[in-house]
């Protein structure tokens, strides 16, 4: 059995004060961003392309780390044990990718005035319609699940902190509205400035969360002694659920990092960076500091959670539901999605008891960090989705002669519409008996599987330069089709044989990897037999991309 639960778990009014102060600060940043902004589209979407290294590093990090970092990841370690802590090793790769992809994307984007990924990809391959639309589709397919999971995190947090009728819905709606307001009024500048604060909170929250759990269990020595007594499945591969075989873990690490770094919101942050040096410094901070926040911070929360709230009952049997799916300890939750709550439960129930009002303050700050993690990713994705839909669809196909001011307002309209739709989706799913959006981690990996389909064209455009327009289009369509086919959300009845094949594929490697394999093979094959891209254009791009500026 775990540690005895404390008698007192009240945090008083501190969470309200800390959270209220934080939300007011965000609105102030929104107004400050608006005061400094101009009516130009480039300013609204890229903050005038002048972001320095501190803002760039923190906005790239805050966009990369979502509620997944503070809820999903410890939740997954709580469910599967130490194996998922190794997911942290994707972060140095993500850091290296900031430089590897970002430096070249920035140079080309700066030289040619691009705003969205679609601008660059469609221009390079000479495909103003098909590729632009496909890239826009990928942008939306990535952004919606990511925004949905951040809003859901706001609901989870509210439900745990302020239990009561409709507390989930209220939390989700408050997070959505505040985020929507400051993006709409301040654009990229407000998003990036709030990301700086949110990034600092996020890193602090990850480290302090780990430290808090280690403290609760009596310090590092006692912590690891108790962890060593966990069930063998929690200390080995493939983990409690049996899902995390090494191939799965490796492919999720690969695509979780690189796939997340070529998604539209990050791509736009590369465009917005002031210099290549800015991205070099961002890459270093990202790869070094953030991995430490994961390995020495938040991942320990999941392990400590297994000690405090064991997954097995007194008879040594795992808690499961009627379908045989693993469940958390009843004190944490009663559905498979309840694993996500481990961080909040530990903080709320253990820290104030151990450290008194100081513990309550620390717990409140980490709760705000969770909110910050969710908002910093939601704002970036809503903002980039607005850019993608405005630049790549509205400007090109609906109203090519619209003024910059009109486009910016259309972008704001898209942000509000996407926010409302995502919030409604979250609330409907939460109220349904079988919550289809149960695990935050699953939702995140699904979104990344889509954005990973941009990798072949990105890599080809920046480094190889052998692909053709037809190859790029065919590869992307193939990749997307495969991801749709094997996604857990695909419910078409295609017969037992196909269902078995899907299940086997899902159990082997990450779904994004399957999509990417198909994407790359088709991209290469079709490129072999179709007309190469104009040599002058390739040289023009290469000259800028490979320069030392």
């Amino acid at each position, binding site marked *: 059995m775990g540690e005895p639960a404390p008698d007192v778990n009240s945090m008083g009014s501190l969470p309200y004060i800390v959270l209220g102060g934080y939300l007011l600060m965000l609105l102030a940043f929104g107004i400050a961003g608006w005061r400094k*902004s101009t009516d130009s589209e480039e300013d609204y979407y890229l903050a005038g392309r002048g972001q320095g290294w501190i803002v760039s590093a923190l906005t790239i990090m805050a966009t990369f780390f979502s509620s997944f970092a503070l809820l999903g990841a410890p939740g997954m370690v709580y469910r599967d044990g130490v194996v998922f802590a*190794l997911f942290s*090793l994707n972060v140095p790769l993500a850091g290296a990718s900031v430089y590897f992809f970002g430096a070249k994307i920035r140079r080309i984007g700066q030289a040619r005035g691009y705003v969205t990924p679609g601008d660059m990809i469609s221009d390079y391959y000479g495909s103003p319609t098909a590729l632009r639309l496909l890239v826009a589709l990928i942008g939306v397919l990535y952004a919606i699940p990511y925004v949905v999971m951040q809003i859901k995190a706001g609901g989870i947090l509210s439900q745990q902190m302020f239990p009561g009728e409709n507390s989930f819905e209220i939390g989700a709606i408050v997070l959505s509205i505040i985020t929507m307001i400051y993006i709409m009024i301040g654009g990229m500048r407000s998003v990036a400035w709030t990301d700086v604060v949110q990034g600092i909170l996020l890193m602090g929250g990850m480290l302090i969360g780990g430290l808090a759990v280690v403290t609760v269990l009596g310090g590092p020595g006692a912590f690891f002694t108790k*962890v*060593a007594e966990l069930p063998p499945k929690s200390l080995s591969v493939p983990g409690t659920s049996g899902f995390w075989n*090494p191939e799965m873990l490796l492919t999720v690490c690969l695509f979780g990092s690189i796939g997340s770094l070529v998604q539209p919101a990050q791509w736009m942050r590369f465009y917005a960076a002031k210099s290549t*040096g800015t991205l070099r410094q961002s890459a270093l901070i990202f790869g*070094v500091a953030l991995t430490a926040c994961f390995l020495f911070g938040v991942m320990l929360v999941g392990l400590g959670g297994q000690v405090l709230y064991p997954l097995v009952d007194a008879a040594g049997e795992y808690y499961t539901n009627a379908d045989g799916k693993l469940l958390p300890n009843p004190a944490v939750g009663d559905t498979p999605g309840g694993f996500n709550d481990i961080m909040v439960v530990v903080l709320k129930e253990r820290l104030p008891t151990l450290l008194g009002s100081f513990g309550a303050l620390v717990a409140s700050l980490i709760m705000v960090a969770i909110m910050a993690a969710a908002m910093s990713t939601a704002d970036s994705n809503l903002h980039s989705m607005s850019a993608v839909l405005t630049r790549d669809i509205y400007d090109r196909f609906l109203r090519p002669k619209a003024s910059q001011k009109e486009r910016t307002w259309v972008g704001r309209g898209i942000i509000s519409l996407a926010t409302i739709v995502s919030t409604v989706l979250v609330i409907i799913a939460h109220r349904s008996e079988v919550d289809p959006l149960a695990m935050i981690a699953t939702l995140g990996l699904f979104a990344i599987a889509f954005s990973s389909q941009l990798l072949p064209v990105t890599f080809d455009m920046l480094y190889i330069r052998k692909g053709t327009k037809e190859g790029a289009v065919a590869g992307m369509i193939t990749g997307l089709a495969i991801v749709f086919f094997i996604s857990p959300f695909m419910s078409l009845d295609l017969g037992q044989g196909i269902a078995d094949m899907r299940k086997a594929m899902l159990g082997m490697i990450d779904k994004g990897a399957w999509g990417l394999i198909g994407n790359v093979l088709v991209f290469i094959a079709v490129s072999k037999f179709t007309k190469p891209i104009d040599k002058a254009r390739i040289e023009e791009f290469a000259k800028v991309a490979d320069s030392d500026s």
Partner: protein
Amino acid sequence: MSSVEREKRGKLGRLLAVVFVIALILGPGPGLRLINPDINDPNAAFTLFGLPKVYAWGLFWYGVELVIILTAYFKVWRGDDGDRATDEPKETSHG
């Protein structure tokens, strides 16, 4: 930057990339099988230096990745430092 220096940097960059890929394959990838304790073996050791073995394995490969990134930062990425400040937005601000 001279072509000799550029070539040297390129070579080191490729070497670091290869070591990084190896670190990924061994760290969170199939290399895990080298140290993974067998849950059916009653004598299996689940810890190393007091830490869960799988976690200790992860820490080691984090160290390797750290060295690679620092080397790349100081030796390979170093030449691309030219800051090119952008023009200030030309339109009137709201402030």
